[in-house]
């Protein structure tokens, strides 16, 4: 595609796009900047954008007070663990729905999605009791299981829509050549589905990382991820904007950086079958 575009138009578009983008990004930028201010400066009634005394004291305070690395590690294990486990369960299911569809496949898919609508607050007590009786309270294993189940419908659906776009003839050709079912999945389907799987993985890591109901309610000291870390900086006594900003920056930075770097992969598979 080679559309001729005038320099002037391109400049105008660039200006507009940058303006809008910065506006959308601004709250995050502001949080980042505030994290380097003193508490007094953070609530200054004439806020300063860049020209203030930059300080690292908030980060020092936060590091002194909480074991950031432990929370970070918990977040990593829980979000990756639940995503990988989810993929392991979802890939065969999605394969079967896409290539051996039955009469009820559509209904099944929709039913799966509807389980996602179970309001978490309503089932907290039953789940808490279950977790207590199985010894899974405050364990990463428990959270991995719960988050896997919570996100499984989305994973299945994303994979399903992705698999469906893979032409069945290719599989059939492989089968003609005598490929078994497992080698068909491993050597023919999987390579073709890598972009879809990658973006499913990314999206679910993001969702699991930011999940803040179960992660907060089923953990105490051992398995608490970054969502619990944040809860110890929200509205304490006294001034807290700067410390909150520092903690927020630390909580969202890892996932944001991951997201930025893997943007292309994320976008490529994020079609949910919406692209013909």
């Amino acid at each position, binding site marked *: 595609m080679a559309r001729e575009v005038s320099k002037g138009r391109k400049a105008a578009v660039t200006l507009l796009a940058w303006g809008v983008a910065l506006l959308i990004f601004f709250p995050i930028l502001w949080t980042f900047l505030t994290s380097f201010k003193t*508490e*007094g400066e953070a*609530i200054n*009634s004439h806020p300063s954008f860049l020209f203030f005394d930059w300080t690292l004291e908030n980060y020092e305070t936060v590091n*002194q*007070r*909480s074991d950031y690395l432990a929370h970070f590690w918990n977040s990593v*294990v829980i979000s990756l*663990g639940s995503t*990988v*486990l989810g993929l*392991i369960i979802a890939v*065969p299911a999605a394969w079967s729905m896409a290539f051996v569809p039955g009469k009820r496949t559509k209904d099944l898919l929709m039913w799966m999605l509807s389980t996602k609508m179970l309001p978490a607050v309503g089932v*907290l*007590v039953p789940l*808490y*009791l279950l*977790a*207590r009786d199985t010894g899974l*309270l*405050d*364990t*990463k*294993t428990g959270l*991995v299981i719960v988050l896997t189940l919570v996100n499984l419908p989305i994973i299945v659906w994303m994979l399903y829509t992705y698999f469906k776009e893979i032409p069945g003839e290719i599989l059939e050709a492989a089968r003609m050549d005598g490929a078994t*079912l*497992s080698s068909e999945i491993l050597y023919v389907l999987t390579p073709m589905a890598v972009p879809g799987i990658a973006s499913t993985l990314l999206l679910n890591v993001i969702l699991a990382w930011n999940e803040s109901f179960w992660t*907060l*309610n089923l953990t*105490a*000291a*051992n398995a*608490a991820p970054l969502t*619990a870390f944040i*809860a*110890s*900086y*929200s*509205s*304490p*006594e*006294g*001034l*807290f904007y700067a410390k909150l900003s520092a903690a927020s920056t630390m909580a969202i930075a890892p996932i944001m950086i991951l997201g930025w770097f893997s943007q292309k992969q994320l976008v490529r598979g994020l079609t949910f079958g919406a692209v013909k």
Partner: protein
Amino acid sequence: MTVTFRPLAGASLLLALMGSASAQTTITVATVNNGDMIRMQRLTPEFNALHPDIKVNWVTLEENVLRQRVTTDIASKGGQYDVLTIGNYEVPIWAKQGWLMPLENLGADYDQADLLPPVAQGLTVDGKLHAVPFYAESSMLMYRTDLLAKAGLKMPENPDWDFIADAAQKMTDKGAGIYGICLRGKAGWGENMAFLTSMNNSMGGAWFDMEWKPQFNGPEWKKTLDTYLSLMKQYGPPGASSNGFNENLALFQTGKCGMWIDATVAASFISDPKESQVADKVGFAPSPVRKGGANHGNWLWSWNLAIPATTSKAEAAKTFVAWATSPAYMKLVAEKDGIANVPPGTRTSLYKNPEYLKVAPFAQMTLTAIEAANTQKPSDKPVPYTGGQFVAIPEFQAIGTAVGQQFSAALAGTSTADQALAAAQALTSREMTRAGYPKK
């Protein structure tokens, strides 16, 4: 026909990697992210120096999150925590359920008799302490001496609500960003309702009569709400309906409030020059009374350490609880961070310490307020409940918050005082009926 699908092995490996074990006695302490608790957390190494065999895990959360987590856990016997930080609202209710371990024999140097009687009384069930106070607070009036002088007024010994209205009007200078009075407006049983319940007590009102009938249709609540709304709408800061303790603290510290009636612990924050821009211009007075009345409606709140009955590490937990509320801990804080930062409101000896009285100009007023708080008989009227700024029944959290929503809406201007009172009356009656009151 077999389907080989191997990655499952990977999953079990992944699961096996999670979780670890430890041989040392590890106790998990759940606490609020308030300044004094964060200091306690920071001083953990000092505790470990004395008790190297006890490892302390901290769960520090924002108050509402903490309360929800801890209540869920103790009520369902989840057993995730060995030490809980809870308020004096929960202690008697939970103790009666047998959820808390009675605390006795806290050590020879603990000096239990030194605990301030009103505070200790609130934690005693069947003659035994079921929690020990970490810090305690009552309510008082804090004001800007410079603004009051500029307004040509002098703070009386026992200000009444008429004086407050007059002073608020004269101190307000909206052009300069100064609001005569800041009060809690954020909905919540521990936020606006703590203040309004106290204020209503000072007006001679009560939540319930002896038959547990809600009293929102009575003249006292009407007077309370009308006075509150007229003060806040004319002289209060913008956004008051979402201001709680923290928001008001920030406002006062940055010089935007003339007067503020709130928890006594705020006194140390607003007179700390490191945090407050008005540290050298603050004065303290008792919480206002109604004209001719004597009830200040002082509230009493304490944050306490308690041990759930389900813990398997009772001894270690008790050792920790005793350490954190002992005279020795106060001495430790005084040495490390200065005596002004000692957790206030729990021990008589602190208020007899001349060093403390010297650095804490608010000490005497705090002590007076705590001692004046009468949680056993909060109202001038006979009532079937105890509690100063709350009603010590399990249903109160929910009812208090729902009523708080109504009053917050009246402050935001989305409903009138009469509508809010009628709604409060209706919803409280409904909830009380559902809960089966009057009981017995």
